């Protein structure tokens, strides 16, 4: 079943030239779908249309079969959690408090946190390996730890769809692999943008490649990641072979 279905979507920042055009994209249940493309190809804009931040000019975004833009922001936030490159400023929130924000869409005006909420926060922090840091100030964490706290916040939100904008950006190789492995084990429908093609090839079930706001390729990593496509979209020569152990495509950039 399709968790997220985007059809014929178009969006332009101020009504003239479209930054996204004719986008068709499906994220199935339990699938990890990668969104690739060079800088400025529209990855972030497309994600924003999917988490209800910017309204598309045309086309439909459906979540569990319901039109996202006719539903309330709260309804959407109860189902879609987002991990972005946006960190809270140093106002002194602790790790546990940042993670607990994930309860916001599930709570009424004067609802306090009950034991179930506390347990959820603790489980989520344990999953990202930060239980020991829960009373620390969020601002004092490293970039990678912050990223993992934000993933914990997304888990606390108990979503059916996870949206990640460059989730591995601030992480060292070990945490890159750990984070993506963790996301795989969650079994949630996930849409994530990537710059690191090898990571995308290793973990994604399906890939979509954006170029100038259009989907230029989609399919399994093996179908999508070809030398011809990389040359066309990124303008760079690459060697694509098989990963010797895992068998997924391996990209080696060729420096001319």
């Amino acid at each position, binding site marked *: 079943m399709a968790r997220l279905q985007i059809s014929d979507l178009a969006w332009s920042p101020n009504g003239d030239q479209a930054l996204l055009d004719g986008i068709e994209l499906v994220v199935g249940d339990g699938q990890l779908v990668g969104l690739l493309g060079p800088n400025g190809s529209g990855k972030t804009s497309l994600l*924003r249309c999917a*988490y*209800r*931040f910017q309204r598309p000019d045309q086309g439909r975004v459906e979540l569990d079969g319901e039109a996202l833009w006719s539903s*309330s*922001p*709260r*309804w*959407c*936030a*109860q189902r*879609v*959690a*987002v991990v*972005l490159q*946006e*960190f*809270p*400023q140093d*106002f*002194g*929130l*602790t790790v546990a*408090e*940042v993670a607990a*924000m*994930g*309860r*916001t*869409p599930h*709570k009424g*005006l*004067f609802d*306090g946190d009950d034991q179930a909420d506390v347990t959820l926060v603790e489980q989520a922090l344990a999953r990202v390996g930060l239980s020991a840091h829960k*009373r620390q100030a969020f601002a004092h964490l490293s970039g990678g730890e912050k990223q993992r706290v934000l993933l914990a916040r997304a888990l606390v*939100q108990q979503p059916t769809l996870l*949206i990640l904008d460059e989730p591995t950006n601030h992480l060292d190789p070990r945490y890159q692999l750990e984070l993506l492995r963790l996301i795989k084990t969650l079994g949630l429908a996930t849409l994530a943008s990537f710059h690191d093609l090898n990571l995308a090839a290793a973990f994604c079930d399906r890939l979509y490649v954006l170029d100038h706001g259009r989907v230029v390729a989609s399919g399994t990593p093996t179908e999508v990641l070809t030398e011809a496509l990389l040359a066309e979209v990124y303008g760079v020569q690459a060697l694509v072979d098989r990963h010797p152990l895992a068998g997924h495509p391996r990209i080696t950039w060729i420096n001319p």
Partner: protein
Amino acid sequence: MIRSPRAYRLLLLVLALALALSCAASLGFGAAPVPLPRVLEILGQRLFDLQPAQALSSAQDSIVWLIRAPRVVLGALVGAGLALVGTALQAVTRNPLADPHLLGVSSGAALGAVIVVLYLGEFIGLLSLPLAAFVGALVSMLLVLAIASRGGRLESDRLLLAGVAVSFVMMAASNLLLFLGDHHAASSVIFWMLGGLGLARWELLWLPALCLMLALLLLLGLARALNALMAGEHSAVSLGLEPRRVRLLVFVCASLLTGVLVSLSGAIGFVGLILPHVARFLVGAEHRRLLPVSALLGALFLVWVDVAARTLLAPQDLPIGIATAAIGGVFFVLLLRRR
């Protein structure tokens, strides 16, 4: 920093007790000192109908109960309100320097006051100045909103900048009127603008008290939203909030409360800017915990600063705005050095 729920409840209790005691103790200070036992006797008689051992002099009774008590209560309300507004505004604008007076409300109130004092006179008696100040505050709030909103959005930067811009225009207008007007009347407006609790009367206090309670309730209800907004625009949206609506609600609530407070007490600086930071020092930035502490600290602070204002130059009243800025500034420097 206080983290555990139990320590937090204890802190609230201590602050509330300290506030009640401070209010009572501060009644003794002023141009005519009244010893504390006498103050307690007067309070006992007025509040609980307890008969004192010896008859109270009616002069002391009226100084304590009719002049100082409403003033102390107004001080607590204004301090709590300004600190509350400052806390909420710093969150929704994501700017640690946001301050109740930055929204243009106070300069609007000042312009209203100037117009009344210089040109209209006390057309409805004692209430004319507060009323005109409140109208001025409302006008500048609407102006700021009209300037800041664009295409259905209400961004925090535009809100702050519009507030500053409106502030300057309003200030220019009232300074021009002061410059052109009668200088004797002008000095009375200037004193009002420096801040003071001298206008306090029992029959006026229900209004700021009611507004403060409503604002506190609303902001506590929005506490989760304030946390999320502090984290950023995208986070707030992804957590199911509509930043524009939250911001609009907080801004209107902050402006109305500030308008009411400023119209009764003049523009008292520092409280709304720094007390939220002191409160964050103590309990962190989670707003469900922060807002009550911030309000209590603000009240406590202003009650004692008003004592200083009453006694430092006695029998003259030092404008409280001067005292808050001086005492608060020095206190904050010490706090920063010790950190």
